[in-house]
């Protein structure tokens, strides 16, 4: 895409027409104190070839997951993306910037979204899923807002094992929303169920549990659903979609709203985004969930057809009563997730999840043999925390050895293991962390 600025002659013509003598006069409303009172330091113009070369040189300084084994997780995971997926995503029918406004004319896109929703329902065990949201954090915040709008109370209880960035987004929503966030200290890296139960009361709109939690541990708090339901509140679960291939589905936990980060399903890490958030709910919330929902129907000729349907009417015609202002979705990212799940299939996804878990278990065992200790003794899925005196220093040593290390905690490092990691890579990681390389 080319950027063609207005020439000085055109600028002058426009100013004349608008009745201004200069650009400065046009911008008098902007306070002088915040104006940049000089030209931008852009340097002389350069050719496309020169600029391309410079950008490539800069890009070459990035470490990427094709060349370096990556043990960094903490919410975004380096899973393998099949080549067929990228090829299909590039199809021009899908590769547009935005969902079409005349939605029903684009049956193909609607069908792909319908299939995405169906797969999210299969994974979570829930009745209904929307067409996706911005990311895991915003999906969680939206779920909390929805719970608060439908419960008597407005207290949202969550253990501090929930992803800290999700918590930040939640707190931002709470500034203007009808929502009070209460974080409850965890015990041994998992939710302290007794303390949570003691805090659940009639003012509780929702209890949030992340599974696996931020530290990679598997939460086991079976009594929360019943307690929050008795108080007419809702159980919200933030879950990892890959883990759902082998873990109990959130529906069996008694969850009312289920959200999560969908990046792991066929979306590349891309330095943090764009990702997608998935959002599923019980039937009760069918007409309340934010975003859009694609439904299946039959057309006048009796053929299978897809429509945008059951969108929360509050977002369109009763906006003062709306719990959300998000009416869009992350269609291309959701499509990547759909293709990923289709290519993997049920058995494939189970194999991927099992492989991740096996590698993590192997790594934990080898780390202990190397004299290192895990921070928590809880069961984990594909990620865990290993105690280190100097996690930042350890990461620097790992980088020098061609390894992208983990997420730095105060006294530990979170290490994630996807099916992309080999035994040799894990052995090298442990050799460096154990001081043997």
């Amino acid at each position: 895409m080319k950027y063609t600025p207005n020439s000085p002659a055109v600028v002058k013509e426009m100013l004349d027409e608008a009745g201004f003598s200069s650009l400065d006069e046009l911008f008098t409303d902007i306070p002088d104190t915040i104006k940049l009172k000089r030209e931008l330091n852009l340097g002389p113009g350069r050719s496309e070839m020169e600029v391309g070369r410079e950008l490539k040189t800069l890009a070459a300084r990035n470490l990427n997951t094709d060349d370096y084994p990556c043990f960094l997780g903490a919410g975004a995971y380096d899973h393998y993306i099949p080549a067929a997926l990228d090829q299909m995503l590039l199809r021009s029918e899908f590769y547009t910037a935005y969902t079409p406004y005349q939605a029903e004319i684009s049956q193909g896109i609607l069908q792909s979204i319908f299939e995405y929703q169906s797969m999210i329902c299969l994974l979570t065990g829930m009745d209904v899923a929307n067409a996706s949201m911005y990311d895991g954090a915003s999906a969680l915040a939206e779920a909390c807002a929805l719970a608060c709008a439908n419960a008597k109370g407005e207290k949202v209880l969550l253990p501090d094992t929930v992803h800290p960035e999700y918590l930040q987004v939640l707190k931002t929503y709470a500034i203007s929303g009808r929502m009070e966030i209460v974080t409850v200290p965890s015990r041994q890296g998992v939710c302290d169920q007794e303390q949570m139960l003691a805090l659940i009361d009639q003012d509780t709109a929702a209890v949030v549990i992340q599974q696996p939690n931020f530290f990679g541990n598997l939460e086991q708090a079976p009594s929360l659903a019943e307690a929050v339901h008795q108080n007419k509140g809702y159980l919200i679960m933030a879950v990892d979609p890959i883990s759902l291939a082998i873990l109990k589905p959130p529906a069996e936990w008694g969850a009312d709203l289920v959200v999560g980060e969908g990046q792991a399903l066929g979306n590349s890490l891309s330095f943090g985004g764009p990702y997608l958030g998935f959002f599923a709910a019980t039937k009760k919330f069918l007409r309340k969930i934010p975003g859009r929902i694609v439904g299946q129907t039959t057309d006048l000729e009796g053929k299978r057809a897809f429509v945008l349907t059951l969108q929360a009417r509050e977002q369109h015609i009763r906006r003062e009563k709306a719990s959300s202002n998000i009416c869009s979705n992350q269609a291309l990212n959701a499509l990547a997730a759909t293709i990923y799940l289709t290519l993997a299939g049920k058995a494939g996804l189970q194999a991927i999840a099992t492989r991740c878990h096996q590698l993590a278990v192997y790594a934990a065992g080898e780390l202990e043999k190397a004299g290192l200790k895990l921070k928590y003794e809880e069961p984990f899925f594909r990620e865990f925390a290993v105690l280190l005196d100097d996690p930042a220093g350890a990461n620097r040593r790992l980088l020098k050895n061609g390894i992208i290390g983990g997420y730095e905690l105060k006294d530990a490092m979170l290490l994630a293991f996807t099916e992309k990691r080999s035994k040799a890579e894990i052995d090298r990681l442990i050799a460096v962390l154990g001081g043997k390389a």
Partner: protein
Amino acid sequence: MNIPNDLLYTNEHEWIRVNGEQAYLGITDFAQHHLGDIVFVELPEPDTEISVGESIAVVESVKAVSSVYSPVTGMVTENNEELENSPELLNEDPYANHIAVISISNPDELNSLMSPEAYAAFCAQQEQEEEI
């Protein structure tokens, strides 16, 4: 316009039938006529406490979405589940099809509701205003 004699009315076009401590709540003929074809009713959950003036249900028609407000304070004891699958019952006979039953906790609140005569006059006035 059908306005039965044995009911009380609100200026939001709800009717209430008092039966001891129970109050049956619905929308009036005037309301269903002005809403047009009703396609969805969002019912309150039983055992929900409700205050006077609070939104207790939502009625969606092809023309509009309207809240139904509770004319009394109390506890929702039942909802009319039939409306979930047959919302058009509110068009067919709005007085035979209630939306919810509330156990009344403050009977004095009933005194501020309209008698059938007062409601008939209120509707006539609204119709007149509409014509202007």
